[in-house]
């Protein structure tokens, strides 16, 4: 985190498309990012690393997946972000930003959340660092992610329901930006992914790049060389950029971003609905939530409602740096559908004894679909654990009569 990396754009992507009222706060944040995060002023980075270790449990292991390696006849390693405190990579960023807010003298934290993982990580970090915390969450998401709502409340965060629109992540981001525009003087907005206006995409990437920093060392120790490919799921793209960043300069390492193909890769122009979240592989350039990036939008530029069985990938945009790296040919965007992701969820649970998040299951599904394309040595980022997804997985597997799903008839008949 020592590079001088202060340009607000990635090629034509990125930038700062936000209301004027927020611009002074963004300039203040940019200054804080450069001083504390890039230049380690007042030992910020040292304290961040220490807390990631002691509170978060870093480093996370890079584990050889023995049965997957056998199944695909190549070396498969899993980067176990599911073992980070809280059960997902989200803490890397939340802890970094809440700590930065403290260094900046802001005593109130707000954040959006979709599936609830970022909200939970922010609530944990805020409790750990003794800062007030409010989370905005769409009403639909509150109803389908109850355990995470409980976790946020238990950490003493306020959870503010967002009722307008579809009641999901997109609306929660809008509402958090409105709160920030109102309370900008004492409040920091902990954005949950590599999206939003500069400096958020770079700052969140820097906090998450501990994933690839560790993985790069670990794979060299274990396998004696760099991998042929690194595979990570991509919604907004924070685990993706975290898993890729330190490998971007290694031209021999393919970087594969796996998006949610949802139920099909079409767009319903009548309903302004995309039954998928593949903005990187199918979207068009536009401006949303502060940045120019690739978006799911209609001809006029209205943003489409996206879909994925995985709430954490269900977003109409994607981080601007990923859009840039995809255009440059450095990152290969691909996608897999809901069904394949569900099967991959069950496969890893059975073969390796790891219940992956539905988000991470997309990366594992691509490995199943195209193992040859990934070379002899593959690192897959397991961005989170799947305990939060059990209700969804059982319901959706049942609906599809998935062969891979275990029978749950033990619950039937009342005995």
């Amino acid at each position: 985190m020592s590079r001088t990396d202060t340009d607000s754009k990635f090629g034509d992507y990125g930038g700062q498309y936000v209301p004027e009222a927020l611009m002074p706060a963004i300039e203040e944040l940019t200054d804080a990012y450069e001083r504390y995060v890039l230049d380690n002023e007042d030992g910020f980075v040292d304290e961040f690393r220490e807390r990631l270790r002691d509170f978060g449990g870093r480093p996370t292991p890079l584990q050889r997946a023995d049965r997957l390696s056998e199944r695909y006849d190549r070396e498969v390693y899993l980067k176990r972000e599911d073992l980070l405190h809280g059960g997902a990579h989200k803490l890397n960023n939340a802890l970094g930003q809440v700590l930065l807010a403290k260094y900046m003298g802001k005593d109130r934290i707000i954040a959006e959340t979709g599936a609830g993982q970022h909200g939970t990580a922010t609530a944990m970090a805020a409790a750990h660092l003794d800062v007030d915390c409010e989370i905005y969450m769409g009403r639909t998401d509150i109803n389908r992610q109850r355990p995470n709502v409980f976790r946020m409340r238990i950490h003493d965060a306020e959870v503010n329901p967002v009722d307008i629109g579809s009641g999901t992540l997109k609306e929660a981001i809008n509402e958090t930006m409105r709160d920030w525009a109102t309370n900008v003087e004492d409040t920091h907005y902990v954005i949950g992914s590599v999206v939003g206006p500069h400096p958020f995409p770079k700052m969140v990437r820097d906090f998450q790049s501990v994933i690839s920093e560790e993985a790069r060392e670990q794979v060299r120790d274990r396998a004696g060389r760099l991998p042929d490919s690194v595979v990570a799921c991509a919604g907004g793209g924070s685990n993706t950029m975290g898993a890729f960043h330190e490998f971007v300069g290694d031209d021999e390492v393919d970087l594969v971003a796996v998006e949610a193909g949802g139920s099909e890769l079409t767009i319903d122009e009548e309903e302004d609905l995309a039954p998928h979240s593949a903005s990187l592989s199918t979207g068009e350039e536009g401006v949303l939530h502060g940045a120019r990036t690739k978006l799911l939008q209609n001809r006029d530029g209205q943003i489409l409602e996206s879909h994925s069985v995985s709430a954490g990938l269900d977003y109409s945009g994607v981080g601007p740096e990923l859009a840039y790296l995809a255009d440059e040919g450095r990152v290969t965007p691909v996608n897999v559908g809901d069904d394949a992701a569900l099967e991959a969820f069950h496969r890893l649970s059975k073969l390796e004894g790891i219940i992956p998040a539905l988000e991470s299951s997309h990366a594992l599904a691509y490995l199943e679909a195209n193992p040859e394309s990934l070379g002899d040595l593959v690192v897959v980022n397991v961005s989170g654990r799947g305990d939060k997804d059990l209700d969804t997985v059982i319901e959706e597997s049942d609906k599809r009569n998935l062969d891979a799903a275990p029978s749950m008839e033990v619950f039937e008949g009342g005995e």
Partner: protein
Amino acid sequence: MASDTPATESDITAAFADEPALVAYVAAGDPDAEATKEYVRALVRGGADVVELGLPFSEPVAEGPTIQQAIRRALDAGMTPDRYFDLVADLREDEEVDVPLVCMTYYNLIYQYGPDDVAGPEPFVAAAAEAGISGLIVPDLPVDESDPLKAACDAHGLDLVFIVAPTTTDERLGRMLDRATGFVYVQGRLGTTGARSDVSDETHVSLGRLDETDLPKAVGFGISERDHAREIVSGGADGVVVGSAFVDIVSEQEDTAARLEAKARELKAGALDGAEEMAQPEGK
């Protein structure tokens, strides 16, 4: 319109020349395009000097709940940029609507408009000018990202209005005033659009910082009553921008046009009261 004269010949600026101006906002297409025409006529009858016609975008981050819902209704009723320009062209044919029309929208709609192979804001600005729009207000486009749109507006003789916030630094203010035309939109308080019960102290501070500029200054965000308009104009503003108070009336759908006209008349009267107060202490 004389296109060979420089952009200083702004019909928006001229609308502030004789007395304090009322800038009135409604969302185009809420609840449908025909109704919007009727509402614009009513606002002009009531004394609106500039009409700000919102082109609805699906993610309106600068708006409070009242205007968010109006935008939702307009989108659900099928408003699009092309239908918006048709609506504007119809209004320009209407002799009763003899005031400048300003388009308020978000940058993605401006950026996407036009043929797929042309990226950038120029096709939108050309279509807006052709339809009869006099200026643009784009709340998610800060001065830092405004070069392409500013160039297109200059080329087509449109004003680009910048919003000055209570948090705007002097350095940023200077950059905005270098580029601003039409009028300066003074955001009266932090937060989103929406009616409030008082005038914020921030308003007075912001107006004080703008003493030097030649452009008219209009204050928006939170103004809904005659007394607010009076206080703001007596505090040095050249006009007031009112949105949510009108959109509230539209949302209720009861005797809408008559109530819009009456509300406009009330706010305009408040602005005139304020101007009178301004004049008196000077002994004139």
